[in-house]
């Protein structure tokens, strides 16, 4: 094990995959300027700066992916994906299907989001659920350095378009990364902490929030399990349902706004398939239906807190119907 930051874990993943496969290339806004190690090793054909034009960055990736390359694009901040929606949703997500399976679109689109840099809602907007709702795409949002590396490598090797969201607040968080080859399959959640009394389901920056909440709950004698979804689409339904059946008490936690968010999907999934196991109604602890503000104080208030998660777990325990 080596302890490195999320940023460095991603850099390792990119370098290893570019070394492994000459078809992998990376381009985007400032990619060649900032990723100087990649530029030095792989050259200016495979590590490229682009105009500040997300539509053509994404479209170029989609066209390249359909014809033999495996592009990774950096679109900087998630709200900028609005300029690339046609290319990602209408082209990358649909043209395989519409062509009757004639084409594959192996590409990875990286974008940052989340509270932490006080940049306001045109740079911080957790829109991962938008893409989960779009057919043909995969959506990844890791929580720790090891998963960032393993999931990014798996995303680059995947033959489908993958949206890879980087929670800004995690970017310089250190974490242990295994030495040697590290691959984390897409679509597999992780049990970040085992527990028997209540299940906290989350992804990205709110996984550490849930782990802290689990510590606090443990001090009170409540054993909380923490599930890290890691991949939002395809969703690891089996792990979610097994957890719901195991504890009968589920709290879903995410920073994205509540309405039609990932938590709503999980609530529906549990209600459809594990209702009889529930000892209390599922709870969601999420960001509000508001644009994320810039003010640090307001931005922090936007994010689900440890206290809010602990409180939700308390309510579930109190409301237990059997």
């Amino acid at each position: 094990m080596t302890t490195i930051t999320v940023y460095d874990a991603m850099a390792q993943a990119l370098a290893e995959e570019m070394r492994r496969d000459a078809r992998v290339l990376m381009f985007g806004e400032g990619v060649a300027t900032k990723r100087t190690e990649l530029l030095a090793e792989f050259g200016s054909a495979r590590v490229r700066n682009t105009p500040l034009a997300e539509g053509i960055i994404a479209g170029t990736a989609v066209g390249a992916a359909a014809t033999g390359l495996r592009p990774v694009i950096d679109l900087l901040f998630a709200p900028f994906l609005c300029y690339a929606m046609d290319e990602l949703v209408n082209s990358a997500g649909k043209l395989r299907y519409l062509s009757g399976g004639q084409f594959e679109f192996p590409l990875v689109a990286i974008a940052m989001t989340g509270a932490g840099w006080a940049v306001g809602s045109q740079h911080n907007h957790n829109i991962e659920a938008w893409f989960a709702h779009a057919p043909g795409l995969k959506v990844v949002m890791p929580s720790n350095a090891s998963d960032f590396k393993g999931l990014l490598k798996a995303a680059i090797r995947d033959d489908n378009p993958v949206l890879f969201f980087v929670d800004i607040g995690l970017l310089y968080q250190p974490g242990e990364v295994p030495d040697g080859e590290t691959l984390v399959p897409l679509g597999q959640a992780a049990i970040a902490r085992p527990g028997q009394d209540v299940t906290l389901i989350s992804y990205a920056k709110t996984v550490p929030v849930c782990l802290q909440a689990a510590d606090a709950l443990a001090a009170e004698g409540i054993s909380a399990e923490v599930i890290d979804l890691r991949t939002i689409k395809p969703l690891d339904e089996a792990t979610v349902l097994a957890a719901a059946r195991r504890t009968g008490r589920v709290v879903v936690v995410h920073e994205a706004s509540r309405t039609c968010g990932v938590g709503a999907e999980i609530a529906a999934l549990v209600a459809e398939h594990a209702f009889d196991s529930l000892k209390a109604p599922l709870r969601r602890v999420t960001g509000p239906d508001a644009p994320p503000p810039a003010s640090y104080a307001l931005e922090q208030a936007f994010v689900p807190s440890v206290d809010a998660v602990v409180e939700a777990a308390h309510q579930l325990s109190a409301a237990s119907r059997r």
Partner: protein
Amino acid sequence: MNTVSPTAAARSTPSSPVIPRLDQPEALLEAMLLIRAYELRLSTHSAQSGTPGTCTAVGQEAAAVGVVSALTADDLILTNHRSAGHLLARGADPGRMMAEVLGRRDGYCKGKSGSLHISVRELGVVLTSTIVGGELSLATGVALSQTMLGRPGIVACFFGDGAAGEGIFHESLNLAAVWKLPILYVCENNQWQAFVHRRETMVGESVAAWAAPYGIASATVDGNDVEAVSAAARAATDSIRDTGKPFLLELSTYRLRGHFEPDDQAYVNAAELAAWQARDPIERMKTRLLAGGGFTAGDLDGIGTRVAARIDAAMAFAEASPWPDATELLTDIYA
């Protein structure tokens, strides 16, 4: 039909697809006639049977055939919702295309595309987007693959004057110029942007003029003269192969039918429509061949008969093709 269509034969005997040589006047005319007959047959079929209406390019056949005639088998094509001409000129089987339009199993895309997004990888028609401008966003990446993977072919991207109003047109041209991508941008300026005349949406007459600020060479040619289009497209592709840089070829033409079928065209100026009908690219080519090309009226009738028989067989093939199995609903979503 009591004859075995060429398509059925092709399906039962796997063979490499044939990209037709469009290097003789007769072949150019026949390709245009095939496109016209294909589109009119589907229009009639839609009116009679209630099958989905298509977006035709009737009147624009010279643009499609002329440009495709200048491409090599290595070249790749991206197109849009008004794509039948590009596909047929490239050698797509009209029976499989009609089956696609009817949503049948033997369509090139298993019926999942319908008329709007047909692509045929084996013919190098690699991507088709019906989002106006979508093809412009994808062409840069296809050209990047050609360059980085050391492939010889260039990329021809067909779009209309409507797409030139999209921001992505400008993003595409700029990146292609900066990265020196081998793209032939083909603007089929058919004067209509869905239901709005181009005159209402742009100042000036020419999309080609928008290439120069990006450092891209361009030419404008009479899009209803198939030989002129072919010559201009050859000059353009020569330029791209010589310089490695993109080129924008604008073809001045006219959409003689509506935005999609059916469309009463009540919004069309009758005098303008009549003026362009008088410049019908097929009639002009016929007149030229009769006047000095060594062709007789009987020769041309023979071509027409051949085309009509192909379209009859194609329609019969499409109508006989089964619906896709319901299990196809959930295939081809992910690789």
